[in-house]
């Protein structure tokens, strides 16, 4: 029980990587607040699943891009569970398009959710963590920040900025026992990557030395390490978890 008596908040926690992280944290003894935007059923089913296994979870709706919504959400979580020890900024969206025809709305939405959301939630919890002299902030980034693809200028920009924010915030909070790290997943089996995986089929595995697409649990286990006391001397790092994808070796 590596996270016993810790209170965790996971944005985008109803599905995909966020869901796996919430489950993993709960299994390690943490109480988990699952923040979702629209998929209430998924969030509620996860809460039920965790509570039935003897854990404690609550679900709250919030729009990560809306500072007021985020503040209100954090306040409610702290009222119900207590001070937030672990924040996982996992909520993210993609709106891929070729740059020359990308609409401003597509650019703004991705930046405001993927980057603005991280700002809003970090801002709502950082001072409290700093005063308590302990905390864990984990930002879910992407290999796309550095290992770029066609059609993802907005997404790559947002994740690159998250990496820089991770480093800069780590410096400010380090003295107060708050670590700030990021995980850059490669190709993971989630709703977000489903369209690409459907189109590409088996071809993707050729680019991944481990010859398999990652599972949300692969990311969740690293998140547990970052959330735990074991990572106490580590901060400002972006951990790539991609089965070797970004090593650049293509199958023979």
């Amino acid at each position, binding site marked *: 029980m590596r996270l016993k008596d810790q209170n965790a908040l996971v944005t985008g926690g109803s599905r995909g990587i966020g869901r796996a992280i919430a489950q993993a944290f709960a299994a390690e003894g943490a109480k988990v607040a699952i923040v979702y935007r629209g998929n209430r059923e998924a969030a509620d089913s996860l809460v039920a699943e965790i509570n039935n296994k003897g854990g404690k979870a609550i679900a709250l709706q919030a729009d990560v891009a809306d500072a007021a919504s985020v503040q209100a959400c954090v306040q409610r979580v702290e009222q119900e569970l207590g001070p937030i020890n672990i924040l996982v900024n996992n909520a993210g969206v993609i709106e891929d398009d070729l740059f020359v025809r990308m609409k401003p709305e597509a650019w703004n939405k991705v930046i405001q959710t993927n980057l603005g959301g991280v700002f809003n939630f970090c801002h709502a919890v950082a*001072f409290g963590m*700093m*005063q308590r*002299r302990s905390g864990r902030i984990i930002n879910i980034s992407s290999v796309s920040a550095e290992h770029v693809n066609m059609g993802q200028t907005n997404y790559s920009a947002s994740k690159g900025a998250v990496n820089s924010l991770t480093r800069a915030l780590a410096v*400010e*909070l380090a*003295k*107060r026992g708050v670590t700030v790290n990021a995980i850059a997943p490669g190709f993971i089996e989630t709703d977000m990557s489903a369209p690409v995986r459907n189109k590409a089929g088996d071809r993707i595995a050729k680019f991944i030395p481990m010859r398999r697409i990652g599972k949300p649990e692969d990311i969740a286990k690293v998140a547990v390490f970052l959330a735990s006391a074991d990572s106490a001397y580590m901060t400002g790092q972006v951990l790539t978890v991609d089965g070797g994808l970004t090593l650049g070796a293509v199958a023979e």
Partner: protein
Amino acid sequence: MPTQDEIYSKVSATLVEALNVDEEDIKPTSTLQGDLGAESIDFLDIVFRLEREFGIKIPRGELFPESIFQGDPELVQDGRVTPKGLEELRAKMPFADLTKFEENPEVGNLSNLFTVDLIARYIQGKLESGNQN
């Protein structure tokens, strides 16, 4: 209205919590940065705790004036605080004793102004002027 000693005592206790230092390390003349190891993030925490402890509101820049530190060329030139800058300091920090600083107004020495004693005098001033929350 608490006595001077009571105010000093509470300020000292606040600094112990905010800066994670021992009570014995805190003297009236202790400088926050030099002696007690405070950094900018600690100043924020100190203001927050003082507000809560004494039930007062400390507007941004009133206790720890930021304008001088921004490097405004009217207030700071070549690393020294200008006469205009000194005026600004006197106006913003009426509770501070600037005589020693004025002898050698190097920006680097500004931090020596921020002593435990200064905070206690500031709080006293706020409470006397009825500035309660």
